[in-house]
Every structure is written in C-alpha cells, then in structure tokens.
C-alpha cells in the first residue's frame, strides 16, 4: 500500500542487486526474491524486490488492450 516501482536488475551481488529504474540505479535487496536473475524486471517496495514481473503476461495484456475498441 504501497509505492512499488518496476525496475530492471542490472547486476546481482549475492542477496543484493543493482536495479535500474528508467536510468536511476539503486541498491535493492533480493531477500524476498532469491530466485531473481540479472535481466529480470522486478517490483520493488521500500528497497526490496517483491516479485519478478512476468513479461509474457504483461505483453499479452497490452495486446488485449490494443484491441479494445
């Protein structure tokens, strides 16, 4: 409830990662998302990744939205 922002993992370093939010690079903890890998997009809340964004589902949704007329 919850300002969570999507960012791209540019480097993983143990349980931490460097995440780029549209060019702003911040340190993010992966303690809640240990399966995250470099190149994944994750949803970050208070400095912690909480979910890996599913690119396939996002793409599918955006396609459906384009067809709304």
């Amino acid at each position, binding site marked *: *409830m919850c*300002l969570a*922002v999507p960012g791209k993992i540019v480097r993983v370093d143990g349980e931490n990662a460097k995440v*780029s*939010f*549209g*060019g*702003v*690079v*911040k340190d993010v903890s992966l303690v809640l998302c240990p399966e995250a890998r470099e190149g994944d997009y994750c949803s970050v809340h208070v400095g912690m990744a909480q979910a890996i964004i599913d690119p396939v589902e996002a793409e599918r949704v955006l396609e459906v939205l384009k067809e709304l007329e």
Partner: protein
Amino acid sequence: MINTECPIGRRDSGVVTLAHGSGGRATNRLIKEMFAVAFPYLQPDTDGAVLVSPHLSVFTTDSFVVDPVFFPGGDIGKLAVYGTVNDLSMMLASPRYLSVAFILEEGFPLADLSRIVNSMANAANECRVAVVTGDTKVVERGRGHGIYINTTGLGCPLAESPGPSRVCVGDKIILSGDIGRHGMAIMSARNGIQTEVPILSDCANLSEMVEALAYRTKPHCLRDATRGGLAAALCEIAESSGLYFIVNEEAIPVCDEVRGLCEIMGMDPLHVANEGRFVFFVDPKDEQKALSVLHSFENGKDAVTIGEVKAKRASGLVTTHTLLGSEKIIQIPEGEILPRIC
C-alpha cells in the same frame, strides 16, 4: 578564467579558524590574498564601495545555504552569484554590482573556500558583474554548516518594472527550458543515488537571455523557478495578480533522468527547484519573437509556451489537464518534501 591559488593554506593550518573572522591580521590576509585577488574591484581598505553609476535603482538580496556545498553541476559560490544576478534579471534589470558576505564555520577547509571563491569569480566575470564589497564572519565549530553566503545585488533597469500586476488576460506563459535538474541533482548527491546519465544542476546566468528578451519584446512578468519549483512560481503570480492560468502539463519539458528519479522518490517535477530556468508572461503578439530569442541561446533551446492567462479570478488559480482530460488545480507544495513509501 581567473585562477586563484590559495597561498594561505601553505602558512596556516589549512582550515578556517576563529582568527579569520576576528578582524585582525588573519582576516586581512584572507581578504588580501584570497578575496581581493578573486574580486579585482573589491575595495578592502574601506568600509563600503562608492558607486558612480547612475540609475542603480533595482536592489535585491539572497542567502545561500545549500547542502552539499559542491554538487553535480555547481557549487554554493556559483549559485550565490547566479542567484542574485538572476533575481535582478527577473526585475528586468541589468546586474552591475554585488556584495558578498560569508559566514564560515571554524574548521572549514581553506582549499574548499578558495575553490568556492574561484567559482564565484568566474561566475561574476561571466555575468559581467563586479563584487565590490563584502564581509566575513567565523562561527565556532558546530555552529554553522561549513559555509553560508549572502549576496546582495544592484542593477540598472532595462525596461518598465515587470510584475504580477502587469500580467493581462490572454498573455502567453513561456518556460525557458526543462525543469527539475537542480533539485534532483542535490537529491542524488545527498542520497548517493546514481543515474545512468548523471543529473547536473541547471544553475546558470539568465541575464544575457533576459536582456535580449527585453530588447526585442515586452515581458510583463518574469520569475525564476527556484524553491517550490515551477508550481510555486506560477501560483504566486496567479495569487498576486488575481488571475486564472491554464497550463498544458504535457508541454512542460522534463528530461528522462529527472522524471525517473522523481518517479521513484514520489516527487512531482513541478515542485522541484531549478536554478537556471524562468517563466515569463508576454502579449500573444510577442510570443513567437520571445521563443525565437530564447532558442538562439544554448540555455534557452528548449523554451516553450506552456500555457496562457484565461481570466480574472478573485483568488488566483493555476490549472492543468489530467491524463483523461479533466481539469485539476496545480498547487504550491506544502512544507518539506519527503519521499513516500506507500
């Protein structure tokens, strides 16, 4: 470029001491070896400067307490010169003379002071203003924040005095460039945030652009968008003039890095401080000329019309359209801006 090497550091301890503020030998050395070298028009042997220029009727003052003192794109010294020069420009005055007062904290490195003074000298040169008088005080360690600077400026009017009362219904509102760089440069420096493309403060001298503008057009009111950002500048003018402005938020340029950082900090670029951007009001017949004047300057290349004055209104109002087209009010931010968590 003026280069002041700092001879003081070699003989003293390398930091500001209480002696430097006491008015004795240490003070005199500081003035003669650092300040008078940087500011050639300074008259250190008298209590004040006597000015022979007539028509010095525009007068302003500003104090600078920025932290950190050296930030991406500038420093407190440069800011102190540009800030007061720009205030004079916003009054459609050609800046001529500055006074400079330092309040230094005991222990502040003299090398940093020299760097700041050097920066002020270069800025003053660029703005073609002379620093003619000044003062230095030193406070005990812990009682100051390194360095505070006050600059006071005098200028000659270029045109009829501008102001909110001269703004008219139908006037176009023009912004000189993209917003948010200074505040976000400070924010990233303070919080150790890196961006792929570093955000640099936009702090700059506006006097040249404003003089060119005043020569070719008749700006009714000008305001630099410093503390409180563009929103504060517009709201204050609306309030003072009793007018209703409508702004096209999509037309307001914001660079990607500032937008991204504002996004994650939960801040609105309209509320972020700028130090090299101004907004002004002109009659529609001057709009294209004003834009072409600004576009001929590097620092004005992104100048754009962002809105217009719609109507008179008892308590002033600034609005814009939301994504879905409804009208919403732009307000001055309240108090300290803190990043949200939720």
